[in-house]
């Protein structure tokens, strides 16, 4: 049974069919990339899976349960966490607090317990701090201890992307949705993020669905690649298969003029 499965999902905004009868799946321990030209509906897939939009028809099944129609925070609690293409950190909170905030769903101290500093609340608070530090430690030097108490806005662009991943990890998710993790990064940092995504699976055991434009990254990480165009899946398979698929080439480059029938 796949970890995440989209069955015949459609979504339209007014008259614009953004996702058109799309089916795809991610297996446990797999890294799947979604590629496609701008406007192909890649981010909409993420928004549908995480509950920000609800599908018009079709099912989104996670670990055997239909999660379409749940509120975003409920879906995150089921074990799907995402990062955003346009970074959405809590900029005025510290680096550590950003990660700590994401543990909300699987912690339980009530307001009254925290207000009165009951032992259970204090124990849990220590636990949250430890978890957050562990998640940040995954990024080694980049988000090292001296950065933990700095506000998130003081981080560089690449570090903000890393912090978003750390924040998603802190939700106790099993499936990470990474929306263009290498966007805006220099070649060195891109190389580093490719390595990191590999480690996320090997060491931390996440299954990963990733949107990426940088074909070096896609080639480096993917077990399977899915190409979308106008909300329709046009190709699926290994990187080499998809990259040479005529429909994919057409979607990216258009049709040769002489190939068009007169």
């Amino acid at each position, binding site marked *: 049974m796949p970890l995440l499965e989209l069955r015949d999902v459609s979504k339209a905004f007014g008259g614009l069919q953004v996702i058109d009868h799309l089916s795809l799946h991610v297996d446990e321990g797999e890294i799947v990339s979604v590629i496609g030209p701008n406007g192909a509906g890649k981010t909409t897939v993420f928004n549908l899976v995480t509950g920000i939009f609800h599908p018009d028809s079709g099912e989104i099944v996670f670990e055997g349960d239909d999660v379409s129609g749940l509120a975003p925070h409920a879906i995150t609690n089921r074990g799907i966490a995402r990062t955003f293409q346009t970074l959405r950190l809590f900029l005025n909170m510290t680096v550590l607090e950003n990660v700590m905030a994401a543990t909300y769903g699987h912690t339980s101290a009530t307001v009254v317990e925290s207000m009165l500093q009951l032992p259970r609340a204090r124990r849990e608070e220590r636990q949250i701090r430890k978890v957050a530090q562990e998640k940040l430690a995954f990024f080694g030097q980049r988000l090292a201890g*001296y950065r933990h108490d700095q506000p998130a806005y*003081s981080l560089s662009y690449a570090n903000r992307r890393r912090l978003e991943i750390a924040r998603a990890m802190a939700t106790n998710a099993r499936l990470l949705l990474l929306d263009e993790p290498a966007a805006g990064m220099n070649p060195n940092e891109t190389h580093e993020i490719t390595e990191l995504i590999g480690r996320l699976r090997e060491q931390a055991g996440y299954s990963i669905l990733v949107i990426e434009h940088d074909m070096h990254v896609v080639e480096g990480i993917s077990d399977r690649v899915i190409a979308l165009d106008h909300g329709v899946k046009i190709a699926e398979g290994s990187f080499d298969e998809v990259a040479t698929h005529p429909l994919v080439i057409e979607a990216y480059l258009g049709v040769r003029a002489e190939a068009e029938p007169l």
Partner: protein
Amino acid sequence: MSEGGVPGVPGGPKVGVDQWVAEAEERREARTGLTGAVARAWERVPPPGRLALLLGPFAIFPFVTNEGNLFRYGLITIVYALLAIGLNVVVGFAGLLDLGYVAFFGFGAYLYGIMASGHSGHHLEAEIAIPIVVVSTSLLGLLLGLTSRRLLGDYLAIVTLFFLQAFVIFVNNANGGLSDFSYPFVGRVDLTGGSNGLDQIDPLNFFGYHLTTTRQYYFYTLISLAVVMTMLYFVNASRTGRAWRALREDPLAAEAMSIPVNRLKLLAFMFGAGTAGFTGTIFGAVQSGAFPGDYDVGLLITIYAIVILGGLGSIGGVVVGALLINGAPELLRSSSNARFLFYGVILLALLIAMRPWYRTVVVLLGTVAFGFVLHLIVGALWSRGTAGHIDGGGALGRALEHWVLLPTHPGRIAGWAYFGLIVAALVLTLVHGWWRTIALIPTLYLASFVWENKLVEQVSGATRLILLGALLVVIMNVRPSGIFGTARVEIA
């Protein structure tokens, strides 16, 4: 890659590497000078010490003043601080622009009055009445929150402002008169006393112990403030507080990071409403009455001013904000206090805002010299121009008599000078560099001329409000995020 530093320079961060960048930013952001030293010292004090430092002066205050002052400066300041703390949760932590906040304060006072007053005929004890009030106001907050939780920003503000107006109209009319609503079971009853207010509210009565003197109320309110501040400090550091701040920063991201945004918004609303309701019981009891005019937009603006001045999201800031907003206008009632403040504000503003330092020196010396020279010239040519006197003011007043022009009947001259001062202030904003420094000299002199000849007479009236306004403008310019607030980045 972070190892890619300059070879042959072992140890220490290398130029351009993450750590170096961070340290450079730290150096750039560190506040310099006196304010920086104070801020750093403040951050070193442990939280209980900060609470003691903030509230300690309040604990001493009753022993050095009389009943009237204790009520006006002390009790009202603390009541404002309590209100501002509740509002701070709603606006500062959760980022919800709630303009109906004061209605919960009024609701608390009226509900307590209905449960314990000569007006209603019930006399519930405070230890029962207060929990009922807090719970009911929280539920009212929940109700308002439920109806408006889908609204964002300005729209929420409009709906909640409407709620406040509806509340004021309700208490103005629910007096059991002919046009009043007939309630189920009880029929027409006089709930609120209408525009005359709900009078004869019982003093707070805990297990038979009555709070009667202002001093007793003062300490009760002060302890309540300390307790609420402590509890809020803990909540702020807990998962709930983090979730509130996260949803203020970015509701969508918060929701995606497993935070139930709607539920937390409602919680913030309830928290704020409960605090306001609790404060209402104190205010109702200490005034022994609840009057519709007390719970109107004026109070709302005052409380907002306190929260913004103290720093959105800062718990300690509201105490200082309340002290400034409530205390300063009262202190300004006497003209010698006001004079010290007037020159103090100018001096402070110059010291803080003028860069580099030698321009400050030029302006100060220039203004002093300008005044004496002008005084000599005018004294020789037109004796009436220097014949006036300053009432009181001690040494500063006597010194000023040799410096500022004091015509015997300054009425019309001062009026024109006032007009000229406004024009000069506008001109100041148009010129730059040394021209501004030079233009500042006669402007400052003109300001003190207007002050001594016109404003100081009306100090208990409009002037103190003008001065207060100027003080607030100066403070907000120096610390745009409030006295205790931390600078926030909106888009980065």
